[in-house]
């Protein structure tokens, strides 16, 4: 590998991560706004910038929309007093927020977000690393994210965080199984007999171009996967780890300021990657319509790049909205209900789904 290659890849990586962080901060804003609209409130509408905010109409509109709020929130996280309680295990206490953010940022590496055609007419996929085992890599690295929560709970050395940590570890294991099994039909369909075998996310998207999207003919897989994504990202109705009504705020009760901010950003980064994966696996990735690709619309070259990335981001935002919509609609499950849903409903359902689709795919692909 040439040095320039490494440099280019690093720049790409930095760009992608900064875009992701930007999305995270605006996801926080979106969450606050959507929750307030659902509850008949106004939401953040005061923060303003000196010059942009004083443009007539536009500035006022942006201020009312809270567009400048993420900057204020970020600064607040930076400058608040960072309290490390006396009774904590210092090393793990500091390590835990980092451990919860790093896996979320690492998984972005294998997430493809579009393609464009270069001057020679070749299709270039926009992805940092097109791994052959991308989906497994994604599951593996995102499963490491639970250590952030568990260690935070343990290192805080107090009751509520501890309970939160224990809950998180049990829940994570329970839902990973069903999640893994629910995506198997997608990859069984992808790997037609005689091919070399691939678990790449780019191939999943390409296979859905000009065909039915997977969610349409694998609704049960889609459903199970979405439920598990909610559980894996610790979102309501599955946020047992932090459930603020019972455990104050669970694993991050003892955290303040920047460390709490890392947890916060980590949660939204997890959500963003999760939404992207749902869009890629089940909702056709960057293809605009079922049975239609951008090429069918006669779009080529760099325009295809813009449109495909736009489609991908649109689907991602749509699913993020769904995340938030669900959060402000459903109450939290009880812990035993979470366990029962995971082990007694989703796991058997996913296995049955796998068996059914094994036969379906066998009969569809039988020569």
């Amino acid at each position: 590998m040439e040095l320039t290659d490494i440099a280019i890849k690093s720049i790409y990586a930095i760009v992608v991560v900064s875009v992701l962080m930007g999305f995270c901060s605006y996801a926080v804003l979106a969450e606050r706004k959507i929750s307030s609209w659902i509850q008949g409130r106004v939401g953040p509408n005061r923060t303003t910038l000196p010059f942009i905010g004083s443009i007539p109409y536009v500035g006022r509109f942006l201020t009312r929309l809270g567009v400048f709020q993420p900057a204020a929130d970020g600064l607040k996280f930076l400058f608040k007093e960072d309290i490390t309680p006396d009774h904590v295990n210092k090393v793990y206490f500091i390590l835990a927020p980092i451990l919860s953010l790093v896996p979320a940022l690492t998984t972005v590496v294998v997430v493809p977000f579009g393609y464009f055609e270069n001057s020679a007419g070749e299709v270039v996929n926009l992805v940092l690393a097109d791994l052959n085992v991308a989906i497994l890599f994604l599951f593996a690295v995102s499963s490491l994210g639970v250590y952030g929560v568990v260690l935070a709970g343990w290192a805080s050395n107090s009751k509520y965080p501890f309970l939160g940590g224990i809950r998180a570890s049990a829940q994570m294991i329970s839902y990973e199984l069903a999640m893994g099994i629910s995506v198997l039909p997608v990859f069984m369909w992808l790997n037609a007999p005689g091919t070399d075998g691939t678990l790449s996310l780019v191939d999943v998207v390409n296979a859905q171009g000009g065909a039915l999207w997977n969610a349409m003919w694998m609704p049960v897989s889609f459903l199970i996967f979405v439920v598990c994504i909610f559980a894996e990202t610790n979102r309501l109705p599955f946020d047992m780890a932090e459930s603020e009504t019972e455990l104050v705020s669970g694993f991050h009760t003892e955290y303040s300021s920047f460390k709490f901010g890392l947890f916060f950003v980590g949660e939204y980064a997890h959500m963003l990657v999760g939404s992207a994966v749902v869009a890629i696996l089940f909702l056709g990735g960057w293809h605009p319509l079922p049975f239609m690709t951008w090429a069918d619309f006669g779009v080529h070259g760099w325009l295809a790049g813009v449109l495909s990335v736009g489609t991908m981001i649109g689907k991602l935002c749509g699913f993020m909205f769904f995340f938030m919509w669900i959060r402000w609609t459903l109450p939290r499950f009880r812990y035993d209900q979470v366990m029962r849903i995971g082990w007694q409903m989703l796991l058997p359902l996913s296995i049955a789904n796998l068996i059914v689709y094994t036969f379906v795919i066998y009969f569809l692909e039988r020569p």
Partner: protein
Amino acid sequence: MTDLFFYLFATFTLGCAFGVVFSRNPVNAAMFLIMTFLGMASLFVLLEAYFLAVIQILVYAGAVVVLFLFIIMLLDVKEENTHRVTPLTWVASLIGFALLILGVVAITSSDNIKAVGDTLPEAAGASLKNFGYELFTTYQLPMQVTGFLLLIAMIGVIVLSKRMKTD
């Protein structure tokens, strides 16, 4: 370059493995165990067996050690209670050490190692198709036996943890 990385990761893995054995605090040991698994995964990556590397992280680092941590936290092991040497400890460690020596001797004395020449053969687990094919043909019996063992273990756990009716 690859050699350098091999020594780097091998040292890292071994160091973390020693960390697992010598830490008094069980949570520290579990964290070292995760890093050992990560080191082993990177060794697999150097062998271009990406599938194995990822599975190593997914299953061991991602699930098994979480369970370890879960148990450690629930049992709340005190540090002083863990450090007690009984005759049984000596016997167990002697047997373990003997098994380790046996394993090393068995590997070094077999022909497999010498068969590896200058050109590295493609690892069986490198491509997904090879992996699946080998698993369902050559290693069919071991896989079934492993599955059966796991089933027995699972039933055993269910029986043990189920409350018996006393009447």
